[in-house]
């Protein structure tokens, strides 16, 4: 009996491992295809879309699922970006000494740097979250708004990190361009899967309970403060990964890359997609990346059009594209009425 069940679980793990390998291969293949066919401009938009997806899915955990509004996530993205860039720069020579120069040392440096970025952003989330999330209500919005600005001003004045001119590592050529399709979409896949698992677990349901009725959630013995802080920290760490990916897309990062508008962009992504929906966050992230680029030629009118577009969405579909639903349930609903008609 036990050996049989052990066998079943081994088979299940083998299947999962095979699936994971397949996913990695597909991402790698798509990346190779994109890099050989598309022009650099298109490639850049695709990368930005992937980073946006990570940002949106992370922000959705706290703003959508848990219902605690953060409007300063650019701050956590900045912390992740600077931490990843700084530690990546410092780690690289040491890892080259260990492994020899080459793709292996680069990949290891990059991923370690991303993890460090996530760690720092998560720690910042913890520091901001613990005092703020003890309270019920909209305090998080106020505090994160302030935090986003404070962090930007701190980086603006941090001499060791290049102050207002930004940080570009020790190499005069700037930060290494590690970020490519493969890494962005591998991390995006990992984070979307991980956050989906979290959202549909008992913990995730408890987070939704906090959003729906915090008093009732507390009366169910759900440790609301602890879970809110957990969700916020995970969300901040996710923004940190996105920051690290963003940093290694260009030769340097500047404090003004993480202005308040960036935080608003993120909020727009999840509102367009539908608060509380992971599928919605993915679509919203891509939507914002594409529309911002498409409208770039309009220069200063871009933001006006952007605002108009949002107003239209709010009027026509205030719950966002997906509402709080996920892709499978939306497809089921679309299919549902048709089968009834045919019967």
């Amino acid at each position: 009996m036990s050996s049989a069940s052990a066998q079943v679980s081994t088979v299940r793990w083998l299947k999962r491992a095979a699936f994971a390998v397949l996913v990695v291969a597909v991402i790698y293949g798509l990346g190779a295809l994109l890099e050989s066919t598309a022009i650099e401009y298109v490639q850049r938009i695709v990368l930005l879309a992937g980073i946006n997806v990570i940002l949106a899915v992370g922000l959705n955990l706290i703003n959508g699922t848990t219902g605690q509004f953060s409007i300063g996530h650019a701050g956590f993205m900045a912390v992740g970006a600077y931490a990843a860039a700084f530690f990546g720069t410092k780690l690289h020579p040491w890892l080259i000494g260990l492994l020899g120069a080459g793709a292996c040392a680069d990949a290891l440096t990059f991923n370690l740097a991303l993890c460090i970025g996530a760690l720092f952003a998560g720690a910042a989330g913890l520091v901001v979250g613990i005092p703020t999330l003890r309270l019920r209500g909209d305090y998080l919005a106020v505090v994160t708004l302030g935090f986003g600005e404070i962090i930007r001003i701190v980086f603006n004045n941090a001499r060791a990190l290049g102050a207002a001119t930004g940080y570009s590592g020790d190499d005069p050529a700037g930060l290494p361009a590690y970020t490519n399709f493969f890494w962005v979409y591998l991390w995006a896949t990992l984070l979307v899967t991980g956050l989906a698992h979290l959202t549909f677990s008992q913990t995730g349901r408890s987070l939704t309970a906090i959003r729906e009725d915090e008093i009732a959630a507390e009366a169910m013995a759900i440790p609301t403060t602890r879970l809110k802080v957990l969700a916020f920290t995970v969300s901040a760490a996710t923004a940190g990964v996105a920051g690290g990916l963003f940093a290694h897309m260009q030769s340097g990062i500047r404090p003004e890359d993480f202005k308040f508008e960036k935080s608003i962009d993120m909020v727009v992504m999840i509102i367009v997609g539908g608060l509380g929906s992971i599928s919605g966050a993915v679509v919203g992230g891509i939507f914002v990346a594409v529309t911002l680029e498409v409208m770039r030629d309009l220069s200063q009118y871009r933001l006006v059009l952007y605002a108009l577009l949002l107003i239209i969405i709010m009027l026509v579909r205030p719950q966002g594209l997906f509402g709080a639903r996920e892709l499978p349930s939306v497809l089921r609903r679309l299919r549902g009425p048709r089968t009834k008609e045919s019967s």
Partner: protein
Amino acid sequence: MSDLALEIRDLRVAYGGIVAVKGISLDVGRGEIVTLIGANGAGKTSTLKSIVGLVPPISGTIRLFGRDLRGVPTHRIVADGVALVPEGRAVFSSMSVRENLELGSFLKREKAGREARLERCVRLFPRLGERLAQEAGTLSGGEQQMLAIARALMGDPKLILLDEPSLGLAPKLVAQIFESILEIAKSGITILLVEQNTRLALETAERAYVLVTGEVALQGSAAELREDPRIRAAYLGEDPAA
């Protein structure tokens, strides 16, 4: 070991400078149904909230089965066997009925016990059994109230605090809900019931406390209070001269 489920002495609760509860003392015996009646703003809900630690009292003691609850966080109090059914039902509206019930046993996740309690809830409220997969927000008011009570039962409580279960419901449904409350009491669970529907509360409970602006104005057995002319005049809408 005390034979009291709940023992409150000189409880004072304030919101900022406004004192809502001005020194209440009350006892609830094990297995008893006790009701707390009074007008809006008499301090009924504040008393319930301070029992589960949602609002910290400024002074006074609350003992649960003999244990002092001072400084004990809400989730510990709930773990010790108190369930609050909040005012206005407060179901998790975007979740299914089953998910609501499962969250009710947040602390007791072992599967067998949870399924057994879920079955018990469905037996008590068959309507919920028919709607396990339905989104809770789409239930009728009465069904939502049933769900809120059932969700509280999922935590296997020894004491249930019910905050105005009749609020906004049709009379027929109210009668049904109160029948279920009696049934729950029969299974040995202690009940503290807060109500504005005085008549029904006095018919259901064994003893009652009447709160007026944060103080206990009257107390006694429900049968006695039903006959008390002051109650009849103030809460049952009868002319004292008649």
